[in-house]
């Protein structure tokens, strides 16, 4: 299968390793990956902060790049539930002429181009039908389901099924997993005190698992959780799902 990669600006700048892991993983599974460096940002930061005119400009631009990728590939995959949700669920509101206006996600047009943007674990489990990707990662790991993966995309246990199939991996359940980490984009700065109060509880739960690694499908939330773990010098590390799945013996 030919897969177009939507890296996201955040990963591009801060977490190139995640992008490399996606490429490694998909190539290992026998697929071809294409990347168009014309892509910048899907507009999520501006959209959720209320700068909708600016977000619309960025969305138009990204829609062009993305449809370009889709014309040469079977579908587009991104290692970000949040950005996938932005394109699939917010674009119809933000740029209805480009992404088919619909009032609710329920009424989305399944044939619309933006429905072909997949979050990584969706692609692996739903499209490829694999859960064992041949990974090996002998560490104690806990999984935090990010809000957008859980509630916007409804990924359910897909990431967990992938993790359970990783050889050597000791998966520990995270108490209070469903609760937000307190990131929320600009919320983390506009309401920094509340944001920190929320992540403090997330950290407490993570520490209680005695896991060495916290895994998620959004590096934005992991930056928040990891930033707090790092400040506390906890020694606990955060890793994107793709990075764990890319590891082999």
């Amino acid at each position, binding site marked *: 299968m030919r897969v177009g990669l939507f890296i996201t600006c955040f990963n591009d*700048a801060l977490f190139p390793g995640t992008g490399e892991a996606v490429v490694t993983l998909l190539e290992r599974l026998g697929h071809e990956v294409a990347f168009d460096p014309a892509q910048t940002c899907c507009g999520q930061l501006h959209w959720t902060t*209320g700068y909708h005119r600016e977000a619309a*400009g960025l969305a138009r631009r990204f829609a062009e790049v993305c449809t370009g990728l889709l014309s040469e590939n079977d579908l587009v995959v991104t290692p970000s539930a949040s950005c996938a949700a932005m394109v699939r669920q917010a674009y119809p509101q933000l740029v209805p002429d480009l992404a088919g206006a619909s009032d609710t996600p329920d009424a989305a047009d399944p044939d619309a181009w933006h429905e072909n943007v997949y979050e990584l674990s969706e692609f692996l489990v739903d499209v490829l039908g694999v859960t064992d990707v041949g990974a090996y990662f002998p560490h104690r790991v806990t999984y935090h389901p990010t809000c957008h993966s859980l*509630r916007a995309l409804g990924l359910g246990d897909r990431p967990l099924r992938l993790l359970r199939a990783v050889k050597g991996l000791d998966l520990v359940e995270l108490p209070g997993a469903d609760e937000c980490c307190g990131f*929320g984009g600009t919320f983390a700065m506009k309401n920094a005190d509340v944001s920190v109060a929320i992540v403090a509880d997330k950290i407490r739960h993570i520490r209680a698992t005695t896991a060495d690694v916290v895994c998620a499908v959004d590096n934005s939330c992991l930056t928040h959780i990891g930033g707090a773990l790092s400040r506390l010098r906890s020694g606990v590390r955060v890793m994107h799902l793709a990075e764990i799945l890319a590891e082999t013996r």
Partner: protein
Amino acid sequence: MNARGPLGEWLAALRTADESPPTVPKFAVAARDALGDTQLRRNLRTATATMSRLRVTAAGELDDWAELRAAGQAIKDHTLLNLDTYLEELERSVTEAGGMVHWARDADDACAIVTGLVAATGQAEVVKVKSMVGQEIGLNDALEAAGIRPYETELAELIVQLGADRSTHSLLPAIHRSRAEIRELFLRELPDPPADLGDEPAQLAAAARGYLRDVFRTAKVAISGANFAVADTGTLVVLEAEGNGRMSVTLPETLITVIGIEKVVPTWSDLEVFLQLLPRSSVGERMTPYVSTWTGVAPGDGPRAFHLVLLDNGRTNALADEVGRAALRCIRCSACLDVCPVYERTGGAAYGPVHPGPIGAILTPQLRGPESPHDASLPYASTLCGACADVCPVRIDIPRILVHLRGKVIESRRRRPVPTPEMAMMRSVAWTLGDGGRYEAALRQTTRWARLVARGGRIQRLPGLFGKWTDARDLPAPPKESFRVRWQHRAGLPVRRGALGAPGGPRMGRLRRSSG
């Protein structure tokens, strides 16, 4: 740090961004006290967790819960789109049943109508049933100003009133108080409190009952809210647990009910949906202990005069917003409060005097307009985690409305002659991201700068708005090469295995592969 170009602009903006009012939202400031209040935090944590658990059980028991929610949503949407028709029908039905209907454009109107009605009875005391709309319009203050003494009759509202306090939670207004505090309050404020009053909730509740019994004994006028008003029959519906509602709608001679215009439902049979959704969503029970319904005046039973006050107070502003109007579906169950990670830590006070929690964050700015810095900050008092939308019995997509209202807040600022620092920054970022070349240049520049301020792969201190991040959290230093750069090099280079733990990588911990 002498960067020029877009980066220089961002940095300049960053340095000042948190000094201007819009980026120091009032919510953030108001929340600080709550965050440091140990008892409030403990009580809220327990209360929200308990209530959420009860709700999950109560809703999970019905295998047609999804269908009930869909029906509830549609009934409310239909009502809102035909609101003028149903209000007129409600007025007709109530009048035919012997009630009188009054219309109030705003809080002042409503307070004037209610105080006028009480004054006409010649009474100087009224019993009140907890009503959020009463709180919204500041009814108690208005009554007192008119020389009328309001008695709150719900236990928690009584505690709040005696303590000259503010409500913390729509359903549990006094949840911030400890039993010891309540005991002291009762000993100080109640006439003839039991001398041996202990601090067991049952003893405290009994003391309140004894006091309120005397109040009810002589009450001639009651003021209530209502959960629903049925247009085709003129029926008002109140759900409650303590029985003070039954007392208030039954014993006095005059009953005055104040409701927002969005409380109307078209038909009696629509209650078959809401009397399932509301008790399970609000208190996590199959039915609240008491539900009272009345239609106008019942000969020989209950009040001889019934007045219904229909309040707008900004609801038509919300109605005019195609996206925002969905907030008017709200049936005030408070389920969204208890699942909200923000509310759980701040409680209600930070949301201001009207409606707390996620629903307050979308209702209050719409009712009052986003002009005040506090109201403009409310749509930002959310991580957009979506837990509220999942639990809402009438399926209000709160995150969507929050984002929509954020858009309105920003639009209202675009008219300013000098852009806010945040706006300058966001525009500049958008301009940069709007072009591949500009983006790559900024990426290189920012990366270089960020790596300069990093120590050991961590950034621990940043200026301006980003300082709010680094106050309590590290930021990983960006790797030297972005993904796009690595991709370009990729043709000639194998993808590095084991790169994940490489020194200088973005991660803040390291893992050694275990052998074997």
